[in-house]
């Protein structure tokens, strides 16, 4: 397929090309909504059926890390929007700057996610044969606050009284936790790859007020991934916490 400047051969005008790319991204995001939608539906039904176990699961999540990550991600949406704006008004150096900032914030988010996953692994909260929701309260480390551990123990006891099968049901919670945040993280990694590609282009001063389609559609994607997290955070971290 031949290409003239930024215009691919099967398009008549740059405008048509841009419209096509943007529509393509929107349609793609619609499929993504349905993709996550299946998981959200399964989450909702199970949350309703096993609210005790899901509440106990929520309690094990670190609100500080999760909340901090939410702020980081919202900031990255801001820098992404700034990058798109800079490209549209032709501030070529700002484009690179904001793209790098976005990538940096995205990386911080993923780093924090790794820390959280590691914590779950240490606390035997990975679904499987070694899963034990009581593990942490019974094997507390030196850094843990004994008061918190005692409170956690008490809460878990109550939960067990209400739902003796809580270990099985909490595994459902953690399957969904890892499934949903993992799928989200995968989207972040893909986004980071796209950002790298954009940064390379921005160093070559490729994005101009006339041609900035790639920045714009990656921006759409990045905002979508952020919005998914805006739903995931309250669903996984906040509902039924310490009821």
């Amino acid at each position, binding site marked *: *397929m031949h290409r003239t400047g930024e215009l691919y*051969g*099967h398009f*008549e005008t740059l405008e*048509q090309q841009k*419209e*096509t790319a943007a*529509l*393509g991204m929107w*349609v*793609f995001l*619609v*499929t*993504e909504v*349905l*993709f996550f*939608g*299946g*998981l959200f*539906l*399964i989450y909702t*039904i*199970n949350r309703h*059926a*096993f609210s005790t176990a899901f509440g106990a699961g929520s309690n094990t999540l670190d609100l500080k890390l999760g909340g901090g990550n939410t702020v980081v991600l919202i900031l990255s949406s801001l820098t992404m929007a700034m990058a798109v704006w800079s490209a549209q008004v032709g501030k070529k150096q700002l484009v690179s700057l904001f793209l790098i900032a976005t990538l940096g914030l995205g990386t911080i988010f993923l780093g924090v996610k790794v820390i959280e996953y590691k914590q779950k692994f240490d606390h035997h909260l990975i*679904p*499987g044969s070694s899963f034990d929701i009581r593990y942490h309260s019974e094997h507390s480390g030196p850094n843990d606050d004994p008061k918190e551990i005692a409170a956690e123990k008490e809460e878990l006891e109550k939960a067990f009284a209400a739902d003796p*099968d809580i270990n*099985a*049901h909490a*595994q*459902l919670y953690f*399957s969904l936790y890892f*499934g949903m945040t993992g799928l989200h993280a995968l989207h972040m990694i893909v986004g980071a790859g796209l950002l790298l590609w954009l940064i390379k282009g921005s160093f070559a001063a490729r994005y101009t007020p006339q041609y900035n389609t790639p920045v714009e559609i990656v921006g759409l994607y990045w905002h979508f991934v952020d919005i998914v997290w805006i739903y995931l955070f309250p669903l996984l971290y906040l509902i039924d916490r310490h009821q």
Partner: protein
Amino acid sequence: MSTTTLPAPVHKMPREDYLNATYGLRSWLLTTDHKRIALLYLGSVTVFFFIGGLFATMIRIHLLTPTGFLVTPETYNKLFTMHGVAMIFFFLIPSIPAVLGNFLIPLMIGAKDLAFPKLNLLSWYIYLVGGCFVLYSFGTGGLDTGWTFYTPLSSVYSNSAVTPAVIGIFINGFSSILTGLNFIVTIHTMRAPGMTWFRLPLFVWAHYATSLVMVLGTPVIAITLLLVGLERMFHLGFFNPALGGDPILFQHLFWFYSHPAVYIMILPAMGVVSEIIPTFARKPIFGYSFIAGSSIAIAVIGFLVWAHHMFVTGQSTYAALTFSFLSYVVAIPSAVKVFNWTSTLYKGSISWDTPMIYAFGFIGLFLIGGLTGLFLACLGLDIHIHDTYFVVAHFHYIMVGGAVMGYMGGLHFWWPKITGRLYPESLARTAAITLFVGFNLTFFPQFILGYMGMPRRYHTYPPEFQVLNVLSTAGASILALGYLLPMIYFTWSMRYGTVAGQNPWPATGLEWKTASPPPTENFDVTPQVTWEPYDFKDRPDLGLGPGTPLPAPAHGDD
């Protein structure tokens, strides 16, 4: 035209088209030309069609006697499962859209290619990767869950290779999503000047509706089957009642895609028929906007009827009433299409060419398939015929009688455009009639079997059902012959068929305004559309009608 500056060499050298523009395996495997990708799909779906067909043949042979004499129960269960998976996910769903849709949509709307040519190639590779996973599953232990993968049978109890199969179907889903996405965007933004929405061929409307279903439904089945795979691998419990999950939830998610998936198969076939009928009746289609609108209506309402597969799962009576009601509503747009096609024939100038025979076959079989859907949508009756051979017969009438007849008709209709050559007409007509007869003999007895109470997926059955089963097997052997014949003469015609010319039928669509086979970029000059769809009266370029001299060879672009 600009090419007329060098007349002499044009006559000696073969004209450059998409087939001979470049040579070598690389030029095919890395092509972004939608027409070449369509041919890549044609090859790969044909392979899956014959794999699925082989399984079907073994099933029918096995069922000749009540006790079954060919295979063990395990093998029989694997045969019908693999038949379903190969045929539905790897033949029927990609068949018309990815082969004919891919080839024709840009030509029909006057574009040089689809909106995202590289994505188009990618979707073929994704299809191949998904296909390899599924073939790996078939080869290493097979698959015995039924194509419906009902949990907890598939997620806990089955000992067959379920995991690679669901991963394969998950991957293949993205091929479908990308194709649908490509079509939607192409139809929105790539139309030639003058090609307004209501001048679009109905084939394009049908594909637009199909693409909506692909884009909205496929992600749900993808995530659902992925979860089944994860359940098997990590012993999770989303759908396993022993771990607190709900097997009925799986069915809801599965049918949320898999019912609309039926429309992915049948809508494009309806699109094909809507092209063939006006062409061979030589008159505008009756009720253009109603046929176009009914495609969209089917796609939209089709998303709201999924739980009619679950009337006897114990779902609430109110849910059952709602879904039964909506299932009757979705029948109306299908009926509208059939009535409009029939009315198009009135006062036409009807030829008996092969594509038209297929179109008539389609209407006849779809009529039976669609009307028997009314039996199954009926709550009181479904209690009795659900999960019997009645269902098997019904959906084969839709999927094979409808979708495959449409696909075959379409292949014949556009074969001259695709290859530049005509197939042998009388042989093709014989094959079409063979298929029609064989099909009815195979599947009509199954309606009676089902009403008599023979459940589906039985490797052995009470002796009172034998007569009808033997009839069905006899029909299947005729059917198999009917499918082999086109394979042979199509292959033969690629080399020895009569050269077709630009517009052999003649037909009114834009795809017939370029050479056969078309050049790589489809049109030498971006076409301007000034005529209404299926209009034979104001088209002197077609060379038809009273007082018109027989076609002047000057078709402009040659």
